[in-house]
């Protein structure tokens, strides 16, 4: 390995960053929804050209619009998970938390949500009641109202019980400017707590994979944590909730958007013991596993300690940690410092993370 001839590898980089549009799949495969490269290509090569027109605005999880002088964040998310009920939540609470968090990551204080239901014929009324009660409870706890909605029913066999879409709006303060492109060399990267909890909680319940565990989803609304962080450090550069594709995908996207490198110290990234063990067992990497109640924050170096203290003072950030920094080197790449003091490139996954055979 040490004698790699560097020239051909360097020549390959252009191909890596700009693959031809959707060239090897004539129809949708599961990986297009995995939050990795295939998802990104779908947005880049199909959605953006179709929707974009002349406006170069990025199609991010949440948009900030200026309406009559007010800055309004707007976001939408669909929830198509199995199982519908999992340790630590249901599809209902997840649908509320997910959209609140998308809004919060632009620095917005969420105000109102919509709820769209696609129900499958035969869904037990009791289960639906549990899910919507859970939604209501999550929204009330977050201080956000569900103000409009829609219900459709599809034939038995044409859906997985229930799909939920939520959209939301929120208000962004005039002084808040959070965007991935604001990551600067020297900035410090923080995570608000342990990673991989949600993905492994779901995985532990999936058909054919059931394993006994105490892992619970971290599903939570993060807007009050964001508010506490912004109160302490108004100049937060980037916020991101590392959901599908995990911390690895989020940091790769930020590195690409800002044209910077990011380096993380793998040993500093908090991972709960049972999550680490389950990942070992299944051949998965916690860096790629989904979270639903964690945020990544990138802040100027002089504000790092204040940011860490503000996160740790909040119940949802008590295990927050500084995990890395933004660097000028290797733009567009995420590099991990491994436990034995070497380095590895952590690439974005292509589709879904696949369990390895051995």
């Amino acid at each position, binding site marked *: *390995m*040490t*004698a*790699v*001839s*560097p*020239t*051909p*590898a*360097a*020549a*390959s*980089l252009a*191909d*890596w960053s700009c*693959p031809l549009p959707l*060239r*090897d*799949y004539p*129809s*949708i*495969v*599961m*990986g297009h929804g995995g939050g990795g*490269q295939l998802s990104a290509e779908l947005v880049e090569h199909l959605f953006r050209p179709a929707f974009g027109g002349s406006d170069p605005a990025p199609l991010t999880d949440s948009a900030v619009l200026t309406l009559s002088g007010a800055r309004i964040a707007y976001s939408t998310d669909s929830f198509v998970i199995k199982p519908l009920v999992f340790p630590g939540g249901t599809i209902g609470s997840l649908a509320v938390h997910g959209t609140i968090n998308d809004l919060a990551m632009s620095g917005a204080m969420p105000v109102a949500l919509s709820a769209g239901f696609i129900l499958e014929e035969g869904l037990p009324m009791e289960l639906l009641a549990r899910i919507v009660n859970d939604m209501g409870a999550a929204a009330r706890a977050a201080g956000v109202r569900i103000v409009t909605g829609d219900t459709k029913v599809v034939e038995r066999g044409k859906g997985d019980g229930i799909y939920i879409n939520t959209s939301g709006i929120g208000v962004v303060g005039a002084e808040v400017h959070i965007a991935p492109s604001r990551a600067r060399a020297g900035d410090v990267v923080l995570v608000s707590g342990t990673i991989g909890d949600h993905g492994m909680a779901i995985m532990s319940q999936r058909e*054919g*994979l059931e394993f006994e565990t105490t892992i619970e989803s971290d599903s939570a609304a993060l807007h009050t944590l964001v508010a506490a962080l912004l109160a302490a450090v108004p100049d937060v550069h980037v916020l991101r909730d590392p959901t599908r594709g995990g911390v690895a995908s989020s940091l790769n996207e930020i590195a690409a958007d800002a044209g910077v490198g990011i380096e993380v110290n793998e*040993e500093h990234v908090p991972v709960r*013991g049972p999550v*680490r*063990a389950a990942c*070992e067992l*299944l051949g998965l*990497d916690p860096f790629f596993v989904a979270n639903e109640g964690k945020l990544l924050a990138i802040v100027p170096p002089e504000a790092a300690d204040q940011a860490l203290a503000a996160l740790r003072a909040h119940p949802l950030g008590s295990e927050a940690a500084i995990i890395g920094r933004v660097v000028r*080197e*290797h733009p567009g*790449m995420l*590099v991990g410092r*491994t*436990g*034995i*003091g*070497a*380095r*590895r*490139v952590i*690439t974005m996954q*292509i*589709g879904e993370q*696949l*369990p*390895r*055979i*051995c």
Partner: protein
Amino acid sequence: MKYLTEFRDGAIAQRLAAEIRQITTKPWAIMEVCGGQTHSILRNGIDQLLPPEIELIHGPGCPVCVTPLEMIDKALAIAALPDVIFCSFGDMLRVPGSDRDLFRVKSEGGDVRIVYSPLDAVALARQHPTRQVVFFGIGFETTAPANAMAVHMAKREGLTNFSMLVSHVLVPPAIDAIMNAPANRVQAFLAAGHVCSVMGFWQYPPLATRHRVPIVITGFEPLDVLDGILRTVRQLEAGEHRVENAYERVVTFDGNLPAQQLLDEVFAESDRAWRGIGVIPRSGWRLSDAYADFDAEHRFDVRDITTVESARCRAGEVLQGAIKPTDCAAFGAECTPRTPLGATMVSTEGACAAYFNYGRVVQLERVRV
């Protein structure tokens, strides 16, 4: 985690690496046989701690990489059948066949399922008596006992709707073939620890003697791999060629005898094609005559499917250590992890995918200089 974190200690890793650097006086090419070891080397950056004289050659021990294209095409044909539930380990789903992969078959309506154990596939056969459940039985000696057990149970229970598409390969014949290849550069082997946990290591002393090559049974954690390399370099520098067991907490000389007994009953040795390498005599297992009814190749009559590999892909030479991935004209051009020509570019432990990602670090180091 007990028995895991102890073998990832950064300070001890640095000490082992320093010792390797200290005793190395000449260039040595060492092949780690198993894909799991390759994964650990790259995941932890172990190669970066080694002196420039030591070259690690990624061997043919990634089952995903060596399963022949023809077998993938047979899997795709079976998986597309309407009454079939096709079960596979996860990372086989993205391996390209001639014109598509299992993900594509799934998107077109095929019932393709990821399972963690072949016994899950047997359970599916019990639950769905009107459908044919097929398990894609690939891998080395490590995965073989569970696969054998699945077929054994299906026979005992009289499950007529379970079968297995078998493409099992064996490590010792591969080592023999690599050492016999005229272009061989490999001077020592890290043998695959988990293969030896099943088979023991009684098969290896004749190989070490015949080819005058050190073979060190090696584990998978960073300290295991570094210890394996250290012992290998010691032998190489001293001109020795012994079999050493550096994975004593798991591997014994005899191995797992009940597992070997079951393997003897369910499987029979056969010639096997290795993707990119070609046929190696007596290098694999097929179902034995007593279990022939459970052979998916017979049940679905896919024996006529024959496939030729892309002439552009030189994965075979890579797997034998004859060339580096970067020597292949397709590498990084039409062949990338996103659009792989061969399986070595698919799996994260495939040599080409590893070089592709690692090559990006090489570029980064040059930027720093």
